[in-house]
């Protein structure tokens, strides 16, 4: 009796596991409708699709320049490629057709944010493949832990051994500590490109890389949130700050935010606690800080998960969310689809789109231009970033959703 029961239990467990594995084929359950629609557009391929792509990139870039005011940091003319010019395309095609670039892509974690960057990269590889006949081999490896820098080092070493042409790295590891493995890869003939790294914190010439395609974490994320606070509060108000895990992104965003707040004597950060970049910790930090400071006007969370935790904390405590004129303003950063949805719903007030799609696209474009056509690159290329609130959420939302719908078709 007992044995049969146990066997039955084992059987059920196995069936369940197989079922779970099978589910993985189903893909993203969130917006199946969107992806099919967009996939159809992409399938149409050719110039029409590519043109729309380039256009949407432009509009996002322009909007970014309008809003940020100090857009000098955004040096990339992202997405603006002269698709459709037959003579130029033929010239490039004759040089690169049939060649293959082997690219390794290693972000510090598998997350929605890096997924969007990777899909941005897919979109550019697809376009280059369609127009110039160049092929890509693309591999993706993320460490299981965000801070597992040594596993990323092993990944880079493996790719160098396997003679990859290029490795695209974003890591929680310090620039200094990563430099020797970059050198090792360079010696093996593998070029290192960085993405989504706050290069402004280091001397970029000392890093053994070709180029860093990123955004300025201080000026294009933290400072945008600070300026937004000053504008909406007319320079007067109390601010709560929910920080992420210690690390270079956190440090850079915090620096940009605090420097901006310091310009307005009426604004003060009355409390700061850590939310570890996750929603439940962000919510707990917000609840505890709101308990001591129920009269705050503004909460800045260094990413959207924590900011959304703060939104839920405000609601649970019966306080008022920002309605355009009064209430508590909550601002996040990153630009995830879930964050845009919350902005559309009037829950989250604003966030910063740090240009994830363009980082992916620009990284691939830079690699292609330097590695295959021989153009030189600046050490640091910053893509446009933009503060997103209910007024302009439609543009970055559509852009991110478009990128997420792109499937690789580049070899």
């Amino acid at each position, binding site marked *: 009796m007992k044995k049969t029961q*146990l066997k039955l239990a084992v059987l059920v467990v196995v069936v369940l596991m197989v079922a779970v594995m099978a589910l993985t084929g189903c893909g993203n359950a969130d917006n199946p409708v969107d992806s099919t629609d967009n996939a159809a557009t992409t399938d149409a391929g050719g110039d029409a699709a590519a043109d729309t792509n380039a256009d949407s990139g432009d509009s996002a870039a322009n909007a970014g320049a309008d809003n940020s005011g100090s857009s000098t940091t955004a040096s990339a003319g992202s997405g603006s490629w002269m698709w459709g010019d037959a003579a130029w395309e033929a010239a490039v095609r004759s040089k690169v057709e049939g060649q293959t670039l082997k690219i390794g892509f290693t972000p510090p974690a598998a997350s929605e944010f890096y*997924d969007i960057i990777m899909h941005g990269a897919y979109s550019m590889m697809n376009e280059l493949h369609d127009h110039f006949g160049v092929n890509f081999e693309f591999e993706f490896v993320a460490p299981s832990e965000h801070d597992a820098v040594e596993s990323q080092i092993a990944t880079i070493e493996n790719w160098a051994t396997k003679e990859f042409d290029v490795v695209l790295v974003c890591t929680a590891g310090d620039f200094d500590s990563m430099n020797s493995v970059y050198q090792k890869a360079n010696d093996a003939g593998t070029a290192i490109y960085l993405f989504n790294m706050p290069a402004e914190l280091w001397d970029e010439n000392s890093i053994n890389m070709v180029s860093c395609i990123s955004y300025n974490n201080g000026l294009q994320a933290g400072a945008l949130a600070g300026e937004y606070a000053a504008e909406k509060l007319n320079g007067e108000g109390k601010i709560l700050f929910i920080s992420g895990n210690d690390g270079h992104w956190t440090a850079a965003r915090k620096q940009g935010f605090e420097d901006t707040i310091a310009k307005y004597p009426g604004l003060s950060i009355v409390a*700061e606690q*850590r939310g570890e970049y*996750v929603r439940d910790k962000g919510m707990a930090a917000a609840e*505890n800080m709101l*308990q001591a400071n129920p009269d705050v006007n503004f909460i800045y969370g260094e990413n959207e998960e924590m900011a959304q935790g703060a939104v839920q904390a405000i609601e649970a405590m019966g306080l008022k969310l920002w309605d355009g004129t009064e209430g508590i303003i909550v601002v996040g950063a990153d630009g995830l*689809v879930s964050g845009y949805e919350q902005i559309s719903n009037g829950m989250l007030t604003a966030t910063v789109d740090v240009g994830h799609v363009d980082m992916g696209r620009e990284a691939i474009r830079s690699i292609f231009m330097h590695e295959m056509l021989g153009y030189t690159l600046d050490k640091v290329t910053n893509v446009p970033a933009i503060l997103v609130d209910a007024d302009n959420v439609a543009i970055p939302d559509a852009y991110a959703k478009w990128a997420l719908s792109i499937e690789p078709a580049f070899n």
Partner: protein
Amino acid sequence: MNNSNTTALEATIKKNKIDRQLIGLVIFVAAIMVIMSILSPSFLTASNLTNVLRQSVFIMLLGFGMTFVLTTGGIDLSVGVVMALSGGMTGWLLSFNVNIVPALIAGFAMGTLVGAGNGLMVTKLRITPFIATLATMSIGRGVMYVWTNSIPFRNYMVGGFRFLGQGNVLGLQFPIIVAIIAFIVLQFVFRKTRFGRHVTAFGSNNESAKISGINTDRLQIKVYALSGFMAALSGIILASRLETVHPEMGKGYELDAIAAAIIGGTSLTGGKGSLIGTALGAFIIYLISNAINLLNVDPDWETIVKGILILVVVGVEFLSHSANKRKL
């Protein structure tokens, strides 16, 4: 017979010691309350204390299951990931407009079965609990990444489901009520039923428990399944509370749950467990965080202070423990 009598006797003695430790914990909580009420006017308010209680519910529920596992001398590192798997299962089904009842049943089944799987590995394959549940943790987390494509499950909030994590009954948040009910039921199971006594007996002495006729394999499988079930309960409520299931949901919770149980006087080596202690332990962990946040201690110092306070709690317990021994 003789054997089980002795173990029962040992268990009573240990229970008395636990009661003394509980007094220590209560004194510690009282001390924090007094000090904090002087330092911060917003600390000793009903809304703040229910907030802390609500924050600690998730660790508390995990800790209840963990107390059973630790009492058998085992450990369950997979509870954090089971939270994500169960909350994910329920949320995922709800996002396809599945009725809430089957969605909840599937979530609970997921947790219970993964837990039972742990138990099977521990008993039938003779893998040590640490390694078996570590493997489950790793596999489960990977499944979460693949299943969600690294994009959190969301858009599954329906009215009834929202109530689980965010509803109020008689002025108390529903998660707190769930924790109270779970505590009452499990306390009864732990102290008054044959199953509960077998758990303690097995943890005190595996061999004598086996000789006295307890089906130890079945007992362990049940204990791990219970832990999985409690993790599922915690995960489903958290999914309702957070309105999204992140693939990394519950990461690190297993260590907090173990810490809560240990602070409460449960032994890592088995044979000794206290659910009241675990509840207090979970509450203390969040009370310390809350106090530190209200005083606006620099976040860089927060973890240091937290660690030291936990050492103080456990250290005081140990000292009172050895003082008692000398008296005996």
